[in-house]
């Protein structure tokens, strides 16, 4: 007898419906799976057979053939265990086959028949809803994730036995308890005022957050670069529901959702170690999985000690930074992951960290410094609009008064500036390619329209272009940053002071100071 169970697979971050067909026919007893499954799928046969027996059902002593359709797409993972088991049970009349017509089923099986969570349930649930299915049977740990789709009736099942019971119309199992949120770190959330002094850098952080600009902080060790970066996500606006859905999808595919977790609420903050490989950063694997740039989508990607990163990893960053999307081609498939993140990078001015310090001498020789700085390639640096130098704070700043709530104020200013940008984006009906409406993504075509400068500002820019030898791209970047600064100030026209501040972030501080080296073109 033939039975059909619907399940799902994931390609990139898009789900698709997989039809699991189980045929039980007379002949020599055997159990085979066809349909381009990976080794986890093929090994699933032994899990399925044991789970069926240990759940008190009969595994047929017949020829069992399972087909996963469409047969030309590679299927991976253990998530087909549960649909295959139900297919075998339906084909042998141990489950009512009609109950399986309009639901999608996914889950890994343990040998005792209990279910285990699987990756990528959210995109598969989306695909199921799109295909017109009405319900989804998942392990309890995946249930909240599946409920994010809304249109599906989510049926959590803790075991094969309860799956059979639920399909016969019984009560579903309880949701697994959502993972307890992390223990509160001392009650008070991280605040910008935790970083003493560095008002200049905080301002730069605010500008970067307001306009979606990338940020580079240069300064000696211990002045607060890492602390500032960690506080960036908190001054960004909340994720919209649409954004939360896509962020959750990416994390679901990567298997990073907390046990029993639902939609991701907070903007991601990813800080990969500097030994990360190019594949780890942009994504990879024979069936490509999202890398750090995609895990940081709609959030912050923090690269601490930028020159320490592998050269090929940094070069690989160029496409995702520029396009907000990364394309990975493998022999079997080409997939594309979104990667629209705020890049925040930090570095020392030289290997010893003391270059430019007013009192402590730098012990690095010029060639050493040049080699250090040259690790960060010009093209990558060129894509960072806001660069800021951090110095060692004075004692008065360190010992400064009580902790304040700087984050709230910064966040309110950022939100206001973002609202201005949103309204402006709605009035110019340019296709933004799905990007957030931020100044950093302003198209060159509308730049002159949007960045209206007063005569004074215009003359400042004219002088800068001549004196600093700005490239066309750099010029446009300065305009975008100037727009953001004006938006933060609530100004309609861009004034000289806005342009000057933008130029200051451009003509970066520490990097051109390498002794003996040619000053970098910016």
């Amino acid at each position, binding site marked *: 007898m033939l039975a059909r169970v619907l399940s799902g697979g994931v390609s990139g971050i898009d789900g698709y419906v997989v039809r699991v067909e189980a045929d039980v026919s007379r002949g*020599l007893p055997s*159990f*085979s799976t066809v349909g381009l499954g990976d080794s986890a799928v093929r090994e699933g046969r032994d899990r399925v057979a044991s789970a069926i027996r240990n759940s008190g059902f009969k595994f047929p002593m017949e020829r069992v053939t399972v087909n996963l359709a469409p047969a030309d797409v590679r299927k991976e993972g253990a998530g087909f265990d549960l649909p295959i088991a139900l297919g075998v049970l339906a084909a042998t009349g141990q489950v009512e086959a009609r109950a399986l017509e309009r639901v999608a089923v996914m889950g890994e099986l343990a040998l005792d028949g209990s279910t285990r969570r699987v990756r990528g349930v959210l995109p598969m649930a989306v695909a199921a809803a799109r295909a017109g299915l009405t319900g989804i049977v998942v392990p309890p740990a995946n249930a909240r994730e599946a409920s994010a789709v809304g249109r599906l009736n989510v049926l959590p099942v803790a075991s094969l036995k309860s799956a059979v019971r639920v399909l016969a119309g019984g009560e579903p199992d309880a949701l697994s308890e959502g993972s307890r949120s992390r223990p509160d770190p001392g009650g008070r959330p991280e605040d910008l005022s935790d970083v003493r002094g560095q008002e200049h850098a905080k301002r730069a952080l605010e500008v970067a957050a307001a306009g979606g600009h990338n940020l580079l902080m240069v300064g000696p060790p211990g002045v607060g670069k890492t602390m500032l970066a960690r506080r960036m996500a908190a001054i960004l606006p909340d994720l919209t529901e649409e954004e939360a859905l896509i962020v959750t999808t990416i994390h679901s595919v990567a298997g990073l959702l907390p046990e029993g977790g639902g939609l991701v609420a907070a903007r991601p903050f990813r800080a990969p170690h500097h030994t990360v490989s190019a594949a780890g950063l942009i994504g990879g694997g024979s069936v490509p999985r999202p890398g750090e740039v995609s895990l940081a989508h709609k959030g912050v990607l923090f690269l601490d000690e930028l020159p320490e990163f592998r050269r090929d990893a940094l070069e690989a960053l160029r496409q995702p930074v520029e396009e907000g999307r990364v394309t990975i081609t493998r022999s079997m498939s080409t997939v594309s992951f979104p990667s629209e993140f705020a890049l925040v990078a930090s570095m020392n001015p030289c290997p010893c960290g003391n270059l430019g310090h007013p009192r402590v001498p730098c012990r690095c020789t010029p060639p050493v410094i040049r080699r250090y700085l040259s690790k960060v390639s010009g093209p990558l640096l060129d894509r960072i609009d806001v660069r800021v130098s951090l110095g060692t704070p004075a004692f008065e700043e360190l010992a400064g008064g009580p902790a304040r709530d700087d984050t709230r104020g910064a966040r309110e200013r950022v939100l206001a500036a973002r609202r201005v940008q949103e309204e402006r984006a709605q009035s110019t009906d340019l296709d933004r390619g799905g990007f957030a409406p931020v100044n950093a993504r302003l198209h060159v075509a509308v730049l002159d329209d949007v960045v209206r400068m007063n005569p004074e500002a215009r003359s400042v820019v004219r002088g800068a272009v001549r004196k600093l030898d700005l490239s066309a791209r750099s010029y446009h970047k300065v305009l975008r940053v100037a727009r953001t600064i004006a938006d933060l100030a609530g100004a309609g026209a861009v004034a000289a002071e806005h342009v000057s501040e933008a130029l200051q972030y451009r003509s970066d501080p520490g990097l051109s100071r390498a002794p003996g080296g040619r000053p970098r073109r910016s």
Partner: protein
Amino acid sequence: MSTRQLGELAERVAAAFLQMKGYAILATNYSFHRHEIDIIAEAQGRIVFVEVKCRSSRAYGSPREAVGREKMRRIVHAARGFLAERNLSDTSSRFDVVEVRIERGGLSLVVEHIVGAFGADGRGW
């Protein structure tokens, strides 16, 4: 008693045991392309291919452990031959192992019947 005689004795014991359980013996020592099946029986419309294993001592492990992957493959091959020869390919079938253990120094025989011991794909069932 030689090993060969012991094997033949075990096969007779196994056949008698299966008949007691209501199986009809269709063939013994069936061979196809030099692959041999000890007993072929039929029960409830199902063809049962039986491998008989005999041990006089536990020292070499239990008899069922002596049916390895290669042995399974040979049995399955012969079974396909048998089913094709008799036009039975559409009939349900099964692979069993009957183990005959000689215990207490030859004073007692213990027969154990493992129903559905393995599948045609050479994996445990």
